[in-house]
């Protein structure tokens, strides 16, 4: 890896980060995130000076749920490093994986679950082991005023309550299934949607009485929905891994973006949006 143009502080942070992930073995590194993010915490702060040699353009492929936060982190990185440009392609993680496998010009990939990242690492398309940088849990979303009077997870089985879930084939749906199994509750949804935004849409439109979405979705939806946290959600914590890709023509900037996400500034942006720390 070439990083001779970097200031030493940044290089140290990167080395620590790489060591941290390597030490924790291969795979999605569920336990690596914590140590990695703390050791790389100065990365974004350190990058605020100029003359670290970063330039050019990268394209970050990221899960749709990261749109707000990553756009912010990208803008911060561009501001701290004049002459750089971070572009994004936000979509469902599995769509992005398919595009990356077909050779789409991506420099960084951030997935909403470890399963999709595993598909990318299985083909050795990443330049370093992925780092888990955030996690998310499910929350019950209800329309304002909570017309169906939902107060607990078990309330979702009340007859006449229109509940919308994600289909088990998509990440938010498999998380919902896990929580159901752990709680011993069998929800009969009126619809199994393809994505968490579809679920949220049905709730904000008032079509559904309740839906299971992520904490960050509820926060991002503002006043249009109310969130109800429930203890059973701890059975399915969703991890978000990120990795620079081998095919990148701008490895330095790609790594800098990964550092920005795992660094203090990026972690703050993610926390503000409701993401929990990497487990």
């Amino acid at each position, binding site marked *: 890896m070439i990083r001779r143009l970097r200031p030493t502080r940044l290089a140290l942070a990167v080395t620590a980060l790489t060591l941290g992930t390597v030490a924790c073995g291969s795979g999605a590194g569920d336990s690596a995130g914590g140590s990695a993010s703390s050791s790389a915490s100065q990365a974004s702060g350190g990058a605020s000076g100029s003359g670290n040699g970063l330039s050019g353009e990268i394209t970050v492929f990221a899960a749709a749920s990261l749109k707000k936060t990553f756009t912010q982190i990208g803008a911060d990185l561009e501001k701290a490093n004049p002459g750089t440009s971070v572009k994004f392609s936000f979509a469902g993680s599995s769509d992005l994986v398919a595009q990356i496998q077909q050779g789409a010009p991506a420099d960084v990939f951030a997935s909403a679950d470890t399963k999709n990242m595993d598909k990318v690492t299985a083909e050795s398309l990443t330049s370093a082991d992925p780092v888990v940088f955030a996690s998310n849990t499910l929350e019950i979303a209800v329309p304002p005023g909570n017309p169906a009077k939902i107060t607990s997870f078990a309330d979702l089985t009340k007859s006449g309550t229109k509940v919308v879930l994600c*289909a088990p084939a998509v990440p938010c749906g498999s998380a919902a299934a896990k929580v159901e199994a752990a709680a011993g509750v069998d929800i009969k949804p*009126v*619809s199994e949607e393809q994505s968490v935004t579809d679920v949220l849409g049905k709730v904000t*439109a008032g079509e559904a009485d309740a839906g299971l979405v992520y904490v960050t979705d509820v926060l991002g939806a503002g006043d249009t929905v109310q969130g109800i946290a429930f203890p059973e959600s701890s059975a399915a914590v969703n991890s978000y891994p990120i990795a620079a890709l081998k095919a990148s023509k701008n490895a330095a900037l790609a790594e800098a973006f990964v550092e920005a996400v795992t660094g203090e500034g990026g972690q703050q942006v993610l926390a503000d949006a409701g993401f929990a720390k990497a487990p």
Partner: protein
Amino acid sequence: MGLPAWVFVPAAVGAVFVVLPLLAMLTRVEWAQFPDLVTSESSRAALLLSLRTSAASTVLCVVFGVPMAVVLARTEFRGQSVLRSLVLLPLVLPPVVGGIALLYTFGRRGLLGETIEVLGLQIAFSTTAVVLAQTFVALPFLVVSLEGALRTGGQRYEEVAATLGARPTTVFLRVTLPLVLPGLASGAVLAFARALGEFGATITFAGSLQGVTRTLPLEIYLQRESDPQAAVALSLVLVVVATLVITVTRRSRTAL
């Protein structure tokens, strides 16, 4: 008649552009597993639902589309061209926009939501919602092709029938309709094909539940997440059904 030789080159390129992706898909089908993939419970449920709902929406398209086409083709009034544009709008609208529009019309909190609830009907998350979504996007296809047939057919026979004392209803049923029957048939088949492929409005408005609202396009989109092989196999089924439908229309048109 002699065509300039050069037109065959772009024509062939265009044909290849349309056919090649379909062939590419064929190369990805795992034929050994194909029967299992397309006959799984969820696949059969999706195909059956698609056929049922598309048939229902085709009937609705005929019931409402024929009078609409007749009014557009046989009358003149102020704002007619605006009305025609509005009727044809779903042809060019992104289907998801159609879905949102339907949601705010027939949804629980939509324009007609309360009226519908008073009547004891449940539209949200029901097969009815799928039929409404499909009808919304398919109706213009029927209206356009029938209106074209009515205009090119002219009104001579109708005028003769009227001068011989036939009442408007008799003229309409005994003269106008039989004359444009081929146009009506091809319009109905086009509407059926469009309903079969409907995706955006359905997912936005109707939701997705096996056997209730999850049509074949929704099933394909969902399977792609977890089982790309099944998605490709089902896509092939949809392509075959659509090809059959379109071939049948062409036949009926040339035969008449």
